[in-house]
Structures are given as structure tokens and as C-alpha cells.
């Protein structure tokens, strides 16, 4: 087992951890998005989705613990990488220019990452750690999104998530070694589509709930 932990400690190993857990979050986000789309179908459809989901019982617990572990790994290796990379250039350039490789997404990964972490905590406080015997999830959503600051906050958070994915998605393929001139454009395209879909799908929910419903 020693070789395994040594491998994970190497620079490529840490990248691999980021990529693996990142892939996990992409899959989670996709499922979360599909589930949430039921909101656009009205209160009844959404609540029946919630009921079916919770009927999975122990499976949900396992998934939650898995996500928590993934988050711990993603955040801690991300912070280590950020710190190490800062130290790798003790004297900064007086003039530094983007040569054209960097994107908004890639340049802001650590910062969007931290913002997403803060968002996830607030998000869980809003909808997960509430007294479910006194209100349905739908009532919680309705109550939260009747407050304009929350609508703005959620819309902003979703955009941040999309920016994070715009670099993270293709990047994880590169880390797994899956970069081929023939397929990379398609992978990059999928990343852009995924981040736009996530931004649109999640982003309109607050607006929809507070203004249209």
C-alpha cells in the first residue's frame, strides 16, 4: 500500500485525486440537475421526485458519505496544490502577460473553488439541514427564493460553478492522459456545453420559483 500513498503524494498523484473527485462531482451535478428539472414541472412532480429519492434510504446515506469524502479530498488536495504552486515562484514577474493558454476558468480555479465550498455549505443549511417534519423541501425552496438576496446569491453561485467546470471538465481528461488531437476538441466542447447547461438549468430555478411560479 506504501507505493499507493507515495504515488498520491507525487505531483501527478495529486492531480489525479483532483480529477477523480472532480469527475465524481460532475456526475453528481448531472444527476442533481436532472432531478431538479422536475421543479419546472410544478410542485407535484418535484415532491414526488423528492419522495422517490428519499425512498432509496440507505443508498442515499452512502452517496452522501461518498460525496463528503470526495469533498474532503478535493478541497484538501486543492489547497495543498494552491499553496505549493504559490511557493514555486517566490519572486513574481514585474510584467506578466497571458500568452493565450489561460482562461478565466483556469486562472481562477482556487478562488472559484473556495466560493463553491462556501456556497455548498449555505446551500445545505438552506435545504438539507432543516426540520423536514415541519416543511416540505418545496416550501423551503419557496421561502428561500422569495427573498431577493437569495435569488441573486444562487444565480451568482451557479455562474461560479459553471466557470469552475469550464476548466475542470476537459482538464480531468487531460490528467487521466486522455488527450488526443482528434478527440480533445470534442471533449472541450462537451465541457462548455455541460457548464452552460448546468448554469442555465440550475440558474433559472430561483428566478422561476420566485417570479413565474
Amino acid at each position, binding site marked *: 500500500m506504501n*507505493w499507493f500513498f507515495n*504515488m498520491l503524494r*507525487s*505531483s*501527478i498523484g*495529486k*492531480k*489525479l485525486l483532483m480529477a477523480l473527485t472532480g469527475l465524481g462531482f460532475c456526475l453528481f451535478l448531472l444527476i442533481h440537475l436532472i432531478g431538479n428539472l422536475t421543479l419546472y414541472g410544478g410542485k407535484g412532480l418535484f415532491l414526488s421526485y423528492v419522495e422517490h429519492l428519499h425512498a432509496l434510504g440507505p443508498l442515499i446515506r452512502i452517496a452522501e458519505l461518498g460525496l463528503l469524502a470526495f469533498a474532503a479530498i478535493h478541497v484538501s488536495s486543492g489547497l495543498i*496544490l494552491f499553496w*505549493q*504552486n504559490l*511557493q*514555486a*515562484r*517566490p*519572486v*513574481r*514577474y*514585474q*510584467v*506578466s*502577460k*497571458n*500568452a*493565450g*493558454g*489561460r482562461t478565466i476558468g*483556469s*486562472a481562477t*480555479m482556487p478562488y472559484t473553488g473556495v466560493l463553491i465550498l462556501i456556497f455548498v455549505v449555505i446551500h445545505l443549511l438552506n435545504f438539507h439541514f432543516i426540520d423536514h417534519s415541519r416543511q416540505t423541501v418545496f416550501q423551503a425552496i419557496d421561502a428561500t427564493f422569495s427573498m431577493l438576496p437569495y435569488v441573486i446569491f444562487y444565480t451568482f453561485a451557479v455562474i461560479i460553478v459553471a466557470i469552475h467546470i469550464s*476548466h475542470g471538465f*476537459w*482538464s480531468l481528461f*487531460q*490528467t*487521466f*492522459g*486522455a*488527450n*488526443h*488531437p482528434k478527440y480533445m476538441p470534442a471533449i472541450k466542447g462537451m465541457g462548455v456545453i455541460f457548464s452552460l447547461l448546468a448554469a442555465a438549468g440550475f440558474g433559472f430555478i430561483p428566478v422561476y420559483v420566485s417570479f413565474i411560479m
Partner: protein
Amino acid sequence: MISKTINLTLKVWRQNRGEKKGRLETYHAKDISVDMSFLEMIDVVNEDLTKNRKEPIAFDHDCREGICGMCGAVVNGRTHGHEKETTLCQLHMRHFSDGDTIVIEPWRSRAFPLIKDLIVDRSALDKIIQAGGYISVNAGGAPDANALPIAGEVAETAFIAAACIGCGACVAACPNASAMLFVSAKVSHLALLPQGRPEAAKRVQAMVRQMDECGFGNCSNETECEVECPKGISIVEIARLNREFLKAEFS
């Protein structure tokens, strides 16, 4: 024929041996022929400095034809200047305009300690090569031609990676000061050829370990390196490095 000349203002990083901190100093480069290379332009400035009994600007160079990898500086925030796939010695002054101000700085990385002015110590890259960037063969008579058939495409792909001249621009350009592009080029060009296969697993592990020990940053796929590499090495090589590394670790 008298060629066109331009006047420039240079802001050059000056830092003496052993000095803790350096600074940008301003010089005027007058009547610079646009046919000169960037290094020749510094030569002219240095001649002037010497005549005025001032210390000339120290910079690294050797071949001056873009093949040795000795030269290099960050020019206005771009490694080897703003021209694509060009080393500093091959960057010509015609790419600048009269009256331009040019800021010239050394490669910045914890793994490249500064020696003097624009010269940095890049022996970290040599250490990585010593860790595994070679093949072991018994000396003896030259093998027969074509005794080891290699498909044209394979040789071609290996050559593309082998074009790396070890200049260190990828490190200098990387927002994380990572040496992944350099290491990936070296690992790839040997891993692609049959002569390099027997030691491929050991090599990639040793070179990555050495890279980490030298204090380079971690790659986060910013892709600045491939844009700045004077030899056009692509991050496809980094993906291959990742594959080689995983293969080696999991087998």
C-alpha cells in the same frame, strides 16, 4: 544597403551575484538595426555600458541559432518574447517598433535560482535528465541499419517530442512554475521508441520524483507552456507522461 534602425527604452532586471534583491534599470538602445536579433541588441547596449565603465548586462547564450536552449528571458511578460515558436536569439528586432519600452526579466522559479541579472541556474533540469532521461545500452559495434524497424509515424512522433531544447521557458511561462512540459517531452521521446521501452517505467517514476524534489510547482493544465514553447511541444506530451506514470505505478 543601410537597414532601418529603431530607438528603444529597455528596463532590465539587474541583480549582482549574491545580492538578495534586484531591480529594473533603464537603458536606452539607440540606432538598433531591425535586422539584429534580440541578443545582438543587448550586445550593442553592453558595448555602450562597457565603454562607459559600467557593468554589462549578464545573459546566457550559446548557439544563437535556436537549437541549444541556453538563451531566454521574459520580454514584456512573454517568455522568449511574443513571437510564436521562437527562441530569444532568433527573435528579431523588426518585431519591435521605434520608441517601444521593453521590460526584460529572468526566468522566475524557485527551482531556478538567480545567478546574475538575466542568468538563472537551470541545473534542476539536468538533475531530472540524470534521474532517468537516458537509455542504457552496451557499447560495442554499431548495430546494423534497420535491425530494429521503427514505423515512420512512430519515429516522427518521437522526434516531435525530442525537439525540446531544455530552455526552461515552459517553467518560466507556467503560472505554477511547473516543469511538466519539459519532463513530458523527455519521457515521451524515449517512451515512444523501442530502445526506450525497457526502462520506460523506471524512467518516468524517477523523473517525476526528481521533478517534485527540485521544487517545481504542480501542473494545473493552464496550457501557457505549449503556447510559449519555442519548439512547439504540445500538452499532448503531458497527457502521455500522465499515462506512462499511471501505467508504471499500477503495474
